[in-house]
């Protein structure tokens, strides 16, 4: 079944078809324009609340880091942005999430298109057990790109973007699983980029990699600034400082994750308003 970039959801009634439209690639980050607006978001799994009452705006073209100890709901926040929480049985969402003004939870919304526009990179690299080429081509085909020429072009561009092209150009048809961890992660990023998303969600993308691979991936993330809106969960505070424009600090209060402070990365680290933030970023606690 072909799914073009402007496909609509299969609705029974004759309402106006709804899409996210073609989003502009991010503007320069120094002009803060909200891309994702989160308002009073709470997430619960099987009745247990993991994230409560989070409100923040992710700005276009900027890299926003979500920091804080494990279990504070950072991954849950990420998963609700592309409705990946749908896959978790018993998950419930409350509050509003708007991307470019469109409510992510609108029943008219085509979730497939949402997830194409909002790509996700996981902590553990998960390339499919297919060849390198097919890893990138297959999602493109499923989303309606059928022409040989265009497929080839997009595969090449994606691999060049992540710096893998030179390393794999003569073995595109070998299994993706034979790549090293760092290469696999970059392949996953390439795979997401090939779909031409506007937003990239990254859940601790470097934590499963060795230090050298980590550096390569981090540099790649840095290069994504201004072209994409990136939300990255990271435990590595130094990484957050290096890479992010904005930072959001989460903490567990009463067994529930809450957003403590949000602001420009520089000011959050150098002059945090909240005591907890200060304690965390100086390594005193957490």
């Amino acid at each position: 079944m072909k799914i073009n970039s402007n496909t609509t959801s299969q609705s029974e009634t004759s309402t106006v078809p709804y899409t996210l439209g073609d989003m502009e690639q991010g503007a320069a980050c120094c002009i803060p324009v909200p891309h994702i607006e989160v308002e009073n978001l709470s997430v619960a799994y099987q009745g247990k609340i993991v994230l409560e009452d989070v409100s923040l705006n992710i700005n276009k073209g900027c890299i926003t880091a979500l920091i804080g100890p494990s279990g504070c709901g950072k991954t849950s926040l990420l998963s609700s942005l592309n409705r990946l929480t749908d896959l978790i049985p018993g998950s419930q969402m409350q509050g509003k999430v708007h991307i470019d003004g469109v409510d992510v939870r609108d029943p008219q919304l085509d979730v497939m298109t949402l997830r194409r526009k909002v790509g996700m990179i996981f902590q553990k690299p998960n390339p499919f057990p297919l060849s390198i080429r097919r890893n990138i081509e297959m999602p493109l085909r499923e989303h309606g790109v059928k022409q040989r020429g265009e497929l080839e072009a997009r595969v090449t561009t994606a691999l060049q973007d992540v710096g893998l092209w030179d390393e794999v150009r003569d073995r595109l048809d070998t299994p993706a699983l034979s790549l090293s961890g760092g290469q696999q992660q970059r392949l996953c990023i390439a795979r997401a980029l090939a779909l031409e998303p506007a937003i990239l969600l990254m859940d601790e993308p470097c934590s499963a990699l060795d230090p050298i691979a980590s550096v390569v991936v981090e540099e790649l993330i840095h290069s994504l600034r201004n072209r994409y809106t990136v939300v990255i969960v990271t435990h590595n505070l130094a990484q957050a400082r290096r890479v992010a424009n904005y930072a959001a600090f989460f903490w567990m209060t009463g067994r529930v994750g809450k957003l403590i402070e949000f602001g420009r990365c520089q000011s959050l680290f150098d002059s945090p308003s909240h005591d907890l933030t200060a304690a965390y970023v100086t390594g005193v606690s957490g």
Partner: protein
Amino acid sequence: MFKQPARYSDVMLTLLVWLATLLVVGLFAWLVGDLILHGYSKLNLAFLLDVPQNAGREGGIAPILVSTLLILAVALLATLPLGLATAVYLSEYTNGALANGIRMSLNILAGVPSIVFGLFGNALFCIWLGMGFSIWSGGLTLACMMLPLFISTTESGLSAVTNEWRHGAAALGLSHTAALWQVLLPAASPAITAGLMLSIGRALAETAALIFTSGYVDRMPTSLSDSGRALSVHIYDLSMNVTGGDASAYGSALVLIITLMVISGIAVGLTNRFLSQRITPS
């Protein structure tokens, strides 16, 4: 603290344990050795290609091999689609009431004696559905017996493939169907095939269920509605009902065992390949 002389009870247990194992291995060697001894003289191409003569005492087992293959083919025709579909269903709706009900009923079916399946197959396929003693009846009865094993191994193969790829595919905006078809099923295919091999192995070893459904006729079958004799049934007939049929029985048993060993070897090889595929170098 110097080395103590071994205590009596320690020595006893060690002895017992070694003896037990030696006994078990010895019995196994006796059985297999006996089989080979008495059966290998029959292992030649003529045996596999000739028709049985003199009630099976001489000649070969060609029609029986054909019948066995046909019965297996019918069984697979029914088992594969039903089994795959059910396993996919179970892995997608893991906790639904229907899913749990199916799992429980399959568990029970897995333990049902084969003679009971013989009764069931006879009543349902031979009589109710009027197929009589035929390869159809035998194959479909075998399918009922193979389903529990095949479904459970396929389901666990699919679950092992698991969330990383499932979530990864969803995050890329792929539908369930696309994810299944393009990623999950291919990734699970070694495990699925291994499960299939195991089920085939079980089917080939089956005798009691086939006696009452596909029958005894040892002529070459001309259609699927003909009665046909499976290899295991042939062994039974030769040893119980045909005096002097022992040599052929042993020969047939050896053919059966060798086939089963090859099949289980494939199953093990596939399982290992499946498992090693999961290990990603970092």
